[in-house]
């Protein structure tokens, strides 16, 4: 390296390394802005087209009980839905009563549902209507299993969009043994056994 001329009138020499650093800094800033902008832009182009929510495919569900225990929310966002069109309105409902029920009444010891969310009401002989109180339902799937085993299968589990937080990864979907939890566009509404149904707002 050549000898440095200590020139007080020109203090530019020691300034060079700093300028290099500044240049690097500006370059990095530009790179950072560019990458942030491209991530935003790319993600936004997809967001404008669609909006995904979690839903359970009722034909794949095996009622393993994990919906009730794995959802990050205190009371699971998975609720039982009743497809009235498919219901037989039976006196001895496979989803309401325990398998070896003695008396067909609303006594707690006869009921399958651990939270008493499934309600039974008399319509006319011999038909009874069964309604699900979604606020009490914890998504355990016992009634679904019973209805499927000795009934028409008109009860099935589904994710309630009002409660579901729409996590980036549904904790239940990670442990679902049947891979039944999928993402569908939110405009399609709920995935019920009889097809998609958009809720009335």
């Amino acid at each position, binding site marked *: 390296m050549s000898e440095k001329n200590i020139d007080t009138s020109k203090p530019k020499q020691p300034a060079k*390394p700093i300028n290099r650093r500044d240049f690097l800094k500006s370059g990095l800033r530009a790179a950072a802005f560019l990458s942030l902008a491209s991530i935003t832009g790319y993600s936004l182009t997809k967001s404008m087209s669609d909006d995904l929510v979690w839903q359970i495919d009722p034909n794949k569900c095996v009622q393993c009980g994990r919906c009730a225990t794995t959802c990050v929310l205190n009371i699971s966002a998975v609720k039982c839905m009743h497809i009235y069109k498919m219901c037989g309105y039976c006196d001895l409902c496979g989803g309401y009563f325990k398998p070896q029920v003695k008396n067909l009444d609303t006594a707690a010891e006869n009921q399958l549902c651990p939270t008493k969310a499934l309600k039974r009401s008399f319509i006319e002989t011999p038909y009874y209507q069964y309604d699900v109180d979604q606020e009490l339902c914890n998504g355990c799937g016992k009634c679904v299993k019973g209805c499927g085993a000795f009934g028409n*299968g008109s009860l099935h589990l589904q994710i309630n969009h009002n409660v579901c937080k729409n996590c980036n990864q549904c904790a239940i979907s990670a442990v679902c043994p049947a891979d039944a939890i999928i993402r569908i566009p939110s405009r399609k509404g709920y995935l019920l056994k009889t097809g998609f149904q958009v809720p009335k707002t």
Partner: protein
Amino acid sequence: MTKLKYFLATFLLSVIYQLGSAQRFPAPEFESGHIPPETQTIAPRGLGWEYLDVAVLLLALSIMSWFVLKKRSRKGIFWTSIFSILYFGIIRVGCVCSVGSIGNVTLSLFQADYVIPVTMIAFFIIPLIFTILFGRTFCAGVCFMGAVQDLVNIRPVSLPSWVSKPLSVIPYIYLILAVLLAASGADFIICRYDPFIGFFRMNAPLGMLIFGAVILTLGIFVGRPYCRFLCPYGVLLSWMSKISFYHTTITPASCIQCKLCDNSCPIDAINKPVNIHPENSDKGRRRLISLFILLPVFIFLGGFVSSLLYKPLSTIHPTVKLAEEIKWEKENNKKTDSEESKTFHASGMQISQLFTDAGHVQTIFYAGTWLGGSLLGLFFGISLLRTSVVSRQTDYEPNRGSCVSCGKCFKYCPVQKQVAETDSKSGVI
């Protein structure tokens, strides 16, 4: 009998799917004229809350940046962080957060069919932009997790660097691991292993609650253990902060090297002035060149060591986990009786298909671990290279990368007091 049950369930469900005559119990015709109700489908929540979250985030970041840079008020920072805990933590129950948004963004980049909500992009990008502008004011108190750790840190103890330096490697590994696992669709480890969310949700696996309690207890003495040694978003923020336009300073005016702020930082983020001769440029240049040559070696080593782990990492992915279980069943000639195994056997899927899928996932992990490890090697090499950067620091400055702008050092600086006194004397508030 259980196998029959599974077969029955799948068979019956497929039969029952056709309405009417295929049903076991036919739909009744009510003579009393009763009309069956419609299946109750509740409309989703409005997005109002989520847009409000973004607005509050912007507001909080702006206020915090003002408190850190302009007003330099520890009190302001403190109360803003209390507000963050209340709003983002308690009212919004800790979800959504910017730290977890890494998972969403990764998924959005690597999975063609995933659509990231606009609010999530906002939660990812906005703190990064504010950090490029103003430094890590997000960490100061807008991030409710950082705010919680700040609150419990009542007896800060300085960690020796032989402890803190190796531990500070973890966030890089965590970030690379999180991106790899999220991109491959295996798991979202940032959200799953967040120690604080369990307290806000009042619901978490026991292990996570214990982990959270440990972190908070540790946080009484060690400043911000999650932020320093775990937070993956902090890695991105530290990068942005290193190149930020503005940054918080300990002194409001100029440093007088009084050393009073020496031990004031609870997270040891103050860069002290270095008192050495700049070394001989020959030796320096030689070392720099050798480090540049070693850089590809580090990259390769990093990639190589990480790729050794691709198999166990891949078992985090559910397909590979199931394939391992089925393989174990075949080898030991018995069934595991787990839900996954039962459902798989009842589904009728070919085992060969499962193994092919699992192999495909493992290939992705092989490539991912090579890439991730190389990146880690690159970071390590760069950090070594930076030792060759001559530091002409004469003042006490916060470390641009790791300072979280908490402002706890402000009160130690006598210049601050002097400035405040002159301000009040001259009537400026």
